[in-house]
């Protein structure tokens, strides 16, 4: 074989050429169709039996604003309770102690296995089962006075959330490499300290997206507390339409507020993710 020439013929230099833009006819067509359908829906609502003036009159009404504040207060507190319970239960679930393991599994089974609205009604009506509650000999009170709509909603939502969050947390902890436990043990850390200092901070990175999901779910789940008289935004909107019969208008008001809150939460989640991504390649530089 004779020695190869520097470069073979027939393969021209393409370095100066640019990639042509494709027309993408189908994208234009489908976009136009969607705009058409949206316009038709908008027109139907505009001509439908909706008095939009009521929407604008009530969107910032005091009762509605109080409602959305109550919604957010409940969502944040119940989620905090849920995350706390979730972490505790996940740690119990992964512990070598069979008693703790079984208790944790039983908790998840019970509170995930029954409808949330049923749990809320049970908490709220606890007085029917236990007229007085307290610590024998020390303190007691009438259950009706203790179990306010606020407390019943907090317990119902928070404890239910804990059952779901524990599985999210468990997944996060399992995602951390076993070598991290060993390295923590090798520098003399006990199980709980290793969890707190080494494992959980790394698990957080993994669990924030699903937890964000859960929190958005929680914001909307607070609306179920309307059935036990907790004055959140849907409950207050209902009270208004019981009086003025503008059902759809007030449901739209409540719906817009939920949309607004959820829209604000999404960028907040991004900030949180960045905070816990410390040391990972994507953000380290």
């Amino acid at each position, binding site marked *: 074989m004779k020695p190869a020439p520097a470069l073979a013929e027939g393969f021209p230099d393409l370095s100066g050429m640019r990639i042509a833009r494709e027309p993408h006819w189908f994208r234009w067509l489908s976009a136009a169709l969607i705009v058409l359908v949206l316009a038709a829906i908008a027109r139907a609502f505009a001509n439908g039996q909706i008095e939009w003036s009521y929407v604008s009159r009530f969107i910032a009404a005091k009762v509605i604003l109080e409602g959305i504040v109550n919604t957010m207060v409940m969502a944040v507190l119940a989620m905090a309770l849920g995350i706390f319970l979730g972490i505790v239960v996940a740690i119990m679930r992964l512990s070598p102690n069979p008693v703790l393991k079984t208790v944790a599994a039983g908790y998840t089974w019970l509170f995930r296995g029954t409808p949330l609205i049923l749990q809320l009604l049970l908490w709220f009506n606890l007085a029917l089962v236990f007229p007085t509650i307290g610590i024998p000999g020390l303190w007691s009170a009438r259950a009706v006075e203790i179990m306010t709509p606020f407390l019943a909603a907090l317990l119902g939502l928070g404890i239910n959330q804990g059952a779901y969050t524990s599985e999210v947390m468990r997944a996060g902890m399992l995602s951390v*490499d076993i*070598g*991290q436990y*060993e*390295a*923590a*043990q*090798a*520098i*003399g*850390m*006990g*199980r709980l*300290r290793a969890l707190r*200092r*080494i494992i959980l*901070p*790394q698990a957080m*990175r993994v669990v924030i997206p699903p937890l964000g999901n859960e929190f958005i779910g929680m914001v909307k789940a607070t609306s179920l507390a309307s059935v036990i008289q907790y004055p959140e935004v849907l409950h207050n909107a209902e009270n208004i339409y019981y009086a003025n019969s503008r059902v759809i208008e007030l449901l739209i008001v409540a719906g817009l507020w939920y949309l607004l809150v959820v829209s604000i939460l999404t960028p907040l989640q991004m900030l949180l993710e960045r905070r*816990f991504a*410390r*040391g*990972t*390649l994507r953000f*380290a*530089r």
Partner: protein
Amino acid sequence: MTKPLVAIRFVAKNFGEFQALKNVSLDVWPGEVMCLIGASGSGKTTLLRCINQLAVIDSGGIWLDGELLGVREQGGRLHRLSESEIGRQRLKTGMVFQRFNLFPHKTALENIAEGPLQVQGRKAGEVRTEALELLRRVGLSTKANSYPAQLSGGQQQRVAIARALAMKPMLMLFDEPTSALDPELVGEVLAVMKELAKSGMTMMVVTHELGFAREVADRVVYMDQGAIVEQGHASDVLGAPREERTKAFLSAVI
């Protein structure tokens, strides 16, 4: 008369049906550098993990600095120690892992300071000074604020060595410290280990780096199928092995 720092007596460890260690007995003397060699599955890593109790032995006993590890003898029976007592015993050993296992959410400095601050409860100022000194010792003064993901494998392993040294252990355990490294990064880690050996640290090193063993080790132990086959001075075991199995292993490796 000096006593061995580590005394291993009739130690057995099974993983299900698999016998990882069969009646192993061994002494490690203060200041000694011991290299453990052998094929994978021969039990050398398991032996190391038993010494710092990441693995729990099934029978026999290991004494570190005169103290029985993991159990207490009382009334003719052995009782397991509590987690905090085992944690206290672990502080006497430093472990370096094959896969570094640095904490990815902490900087190099924070990785080194974590144990002294959190476990030993020492003052932040003095811990920081010592951690910076350790970083200098492993040649990474400029990387104090780097996260593990920003370091090469060799640099990560050197931080891991510094992290283990920060606890001021009396015994350093190295579990194949260079096996996960690209060939050009092995030298920098071995250099740090040589310096450490020269400083008089007692070391047990599971390794495939026979050159390192020949140069640094006071004693080489060859293990096969969960038992010690041959041990002795590095030049004897590596240069003129007596046992057939050692000869076979060495000729396969070199």
